[in-house]
């Protein structure tokens, strides 16, 4: 077990600055997820920790050792690849044993560790098969097994579930969580799927364009996104945004836009004081919207016209037109709403998010 420390990490491919000044501390036994859209530098960061990519500048520490110059084999890490990267000519047993054989473990020790890992993953009956004869989910288990047998200091996962079908992905996600709870090995997990990030991570690192946008526990990211990008990336369906102007009338602060006229409660108004007269971006999550007029006085509602009704069973997604823009509201399945119907969407003012329009930072 060990912590991983990343200090001012940079990666420049030819002209492209893929990872910019990343600073991260992954604590011992922690499960940290790097998440972001493709090309955000998350995989490159992981590969630099693994030693598969050279470091342009900065430092990576595993335990208390700077590993910048260490080859992957000497870093005491194990990695699970997106495409499994199983050796096609070797049996499942040999695939899992390979890393131990290379490290000259005794035959009995290898056997014991492989059986143990196979037991955890439920693949004891597949040990003599070749990867070709396995389903995607089974291959994924073998790839995990190959990492488990090594008892490394750190697990690195590079989008390990993205080649599985949706149902299997959910199942493997739960299993991964269980395995981590059981072994407690420090893990860095890369994914583009924010649901995976939210469910697996003790902490989540959101990246974009090579820059860390926010680091925090899943619910912190959800409740208090640091900027507009994180707000839009975390949560599904994505947060609704509207550009509004702030004005003070008769001592009350108003957020004004086409079709929206909100009177903001004093607490929020205080926070936005310095932005009066300027354009800011208002954000509200679909699940924070409900049908029906707000509790009158604070004016926490606005008119909307229903354009599409998506019935998901557990909830209904309403695609609505608000002023000249569109929003999505996730409402109770009992709500009766028809296309082209005009209704009012209400919300609690505390659930509103505000972002500086120029910088995108939360206010």
């Amino acid at each position, binding site marked *: 077990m060990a912590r991983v420390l990343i200090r001012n990490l940079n990666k420049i491919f030819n002209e492209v600055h893929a990872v910019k000044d990343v600073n991260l501390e992954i604590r011992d036994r922690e499960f940290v997820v790097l998440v972001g859209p493709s090309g955000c530098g998350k995989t490159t960061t992981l590969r630099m920790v*693994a030693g598969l990519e050279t470091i342009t500048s900065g430092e990576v520490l595993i335990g208390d050792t700077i590993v910048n110059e260490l080859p992957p*084999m000497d870093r005491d890490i194990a*990695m699970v690849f997106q495409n499994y*990267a199983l*050796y096609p000519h070797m049996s499942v047993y040999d695939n899992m044993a390979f*890393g131990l054989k*290379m490290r000259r473990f005794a035959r009995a020790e290898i056997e014991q560790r492989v059986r143990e890992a196979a037991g955890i993953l439920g693949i004891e009956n597949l040990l003599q098969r*070749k990867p070709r004869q396995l389903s995607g989910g089974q291959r994924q288990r073998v790839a995990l097994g*190959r990492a488990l047998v090594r008892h490394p200091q750190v697990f690195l996962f590079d989008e390990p579930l993205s080649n599985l079908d949706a149902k299997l992905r959910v199942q493997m996600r739960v299993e991964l969580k269980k395995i981590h709870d059981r072994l407690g090995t420090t893990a860095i997990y890369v994914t583009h799927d924010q649901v995976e990030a939210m469910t697996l991570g003790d902490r989540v690192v959101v990246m974009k364009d090579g820059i860390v946008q926010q680091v925090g526990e899943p619910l912190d990211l959800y409740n208090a996104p640091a900027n507009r990008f994180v707000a839009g990336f975390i949560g599904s369906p994505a947060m609704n945004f509207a550009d509004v102007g702030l004005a003070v009338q008769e001592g009350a602060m108003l957020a004004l836009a086409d079709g929206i006229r909100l009177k903001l409660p004093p607490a929020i108004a205080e926070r936005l004081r310095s932005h009066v007269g300027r354009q800011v971006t208002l954000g509200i999550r679909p699940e924070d919207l409900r049908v029906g007029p707000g509790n009158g006085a604070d004016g926490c509602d606005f008119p909307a016209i229903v354009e599409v009704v998506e019935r998901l069973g557990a909830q209904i997604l309403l695609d609505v037109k608000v002023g000249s823009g569109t929003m999505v509201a996730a409402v109770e399945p009992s709500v009766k709403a028809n296309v082209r119907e005009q209704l009012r969407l209400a919300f609690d003012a505390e659930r509103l998010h505000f972002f500086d329009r120029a910088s995108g930072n939360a206010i």
Partner: protein
Amino acid sequence: MAVSEVVSQRAFARTPPRSATTRLLEDERWLAVVLLLPTVILLGLFIAYPFVDGVLLSVTDARVGVPGSFVGLQNFESLWHDTIFRTAVWNTFVYTAVATVFKLALGLWLALLLNRHFKGKAFARAFILLPFIIPTVLSTFAWKWMFDPTFSVINWTLFQLGLIHTRINWLGDPNLALISVIIVNVWRGVPFYAISLLAGLQTINPELQEAAAIDGARPWQRFWHVTWPLLLPVTMVVVLFSVVPTFADFQLVYVLTGGGPANATQLFATYAYQIGVGTGLLGEGAAVSLAMFPFLLIVVIVQLLYIRRVEVH
């Protein structure tokens, strides 16, 4: 009820009847015959017919201008006692074995180099193909000059470097002559190996190398445990495609030494040519070329069986 009413009110659209030819071609068995026919005709005309003709010729005493009559296995019997033929057989095996080993080793080495990223990679790849592209006769003439005792650029270089003090007679010395023709064969054959093996290497997922690196395999172990086993099927095909023409090589030796000195570089093909065309004993010449056939057949069968085994497992 409702459905039948709707349907019955409209006449069905009828597709135009299909012609007899179309119907015949729709039948896959007939289509297969039609598609195979051109290949069968070509193979029959240019491979099967000459082969059968050669077999028939080898059991006659035909000479240039004389149709000849059936003599049974007499030609093969006289070959059995022919010391030059025995030399040719031995030379051919040495020539094929040594050249193949070097071509494979050098070709694999080049392929591994070309599989890395470096500046000017595209140029290097094109450049390496040169010996393969230049007509053999043309490039062999260039080699003939390089091996010339008086004008040899190789001798000159070795002399200037102080490594030799007398001229080496590359093609005149019986031992050196065979080595020399092998060198040229290797030079000409390496590009084929390099490019084919490179294609094979590129089908191997680079993530496997990374996985092996993390698993603790050193570069040599990664090659031995991962790359080589996965490249083996391709290697076997490449070797198969190379051994057969090397075994039956003619142009190169014919241009360089003509089989000399004193039959030191005589191969199956050159000897067959010498007997059949040079001396005019068509029957015996055919017998010499046909004697290659069993060897090649064994090589092909063994390798095809091996490839099948590898592919199945």
